[in-house]
């Protein structure tokens, strides 16, 4: 009985620290969730004379996948971005973040281009507005132009099946 309180405190601390250890410090909650998507107007990578702005995309659910040719993890998630685009649940746009257009085009030629369009963000301004700090990142925007989801890091089969696809189905329905 003498040890009840210290033991209780000990168990509480272990629980708390254990929980803390299992959190991923790289995953910072975005303040943009459930807010209107930051405005942008960007040229398409493959057709620089054409611009896309977020008002063009109102009324549909869409995915923004931030990628760059210099980003190794983007290569890792590319297969799953491609699968996602092939499911035709929503249009997948690429935000080509701080990249050289020629490098980006080569990359897409080499690995395949799943994107409805890739938008050029050469100086990273739009990236800052979207709170991008680690490429790749994946956002889901609903029909009203509200950001509903953000994933930091490479997506994989798990995130696709358990989070992204169910949310896209729900939002499109």
């Amino acid at each position: 009985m003498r040890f009840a309180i210290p033991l209780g405190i000990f168990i509480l601390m272990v629980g708390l620290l254990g929980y803390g250890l299992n959190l991923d410090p790289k995953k910072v909650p975005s303040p943009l969730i459930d807010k209107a998507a930051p405005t942008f107007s960007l040229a398409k990578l493959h057709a620089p004379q054409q611009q896309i702005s977020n008002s063009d995309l109102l009324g549909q659910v869409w995915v923004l996948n931030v990628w760059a040719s210099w980003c190794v993890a983007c290569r890792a998630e590319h297969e799953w971005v491609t699968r996602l685009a092939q499911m035709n649940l929503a249009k997948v746009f690429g935000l080509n973040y701080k990249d050289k257009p020629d490098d980006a085009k080569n990359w897409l030629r080499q690995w395949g281009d799943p994107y409805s369009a890739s938008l050029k963000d050469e100086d990273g301004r739009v990236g800052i507005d979207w709170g991008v700090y680690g490429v790749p990142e994946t956002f889901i925007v609903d029909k009203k132009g509200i950001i509903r989801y953000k994933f930091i890091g490479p997506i994989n089969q798990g995130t696709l099946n358990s989070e992204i696809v169910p949310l896209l189905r729900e939002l499109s329905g």
Partner: protein
Amino acid sequence: MLRLLTLCLLLYTMPLQAVIETYEFESAQMEAEYYKLINELRCLVCQNQNLSGSNADLAKDLRKQTYEMLNQGKTPDQVVQYMVDRYGDFVLYRPRVKKGTLLLWFGPFALLVLVLWLVIRVMRKKQILVPPDADALQRAQQLLSDNQEKQ
């Protein structure tokens, strides 16, 4: 010895020079604001560094953004708000006092008070803090004066 000291000094200055790009400021006040801001904003790529200490690409961009906003006449608070709107409270090395951060700000003090209270309680229980009663005092004085007489 002098050579070693010189070497140490040289090695010390290197990382400082490696990071900071030079900006021209209109006023000393703006310069001070700039350095205060980049010291208090976190670089999200290398999370244990502030913007001034980080050489990450994003940190460079955000330093530039900070400089440009100050140059446009924005106040430091507006710059901080701009960063928080995009990256969340996590960018602040000095978190704001609000409902979600109360525990962070005042938790340690609460813990201190709690521990002090516990310590006092335990000491009282074990009679460490209880003042000696009159009898005991008198006996102590008696013993002391006896001792003096013997000497």
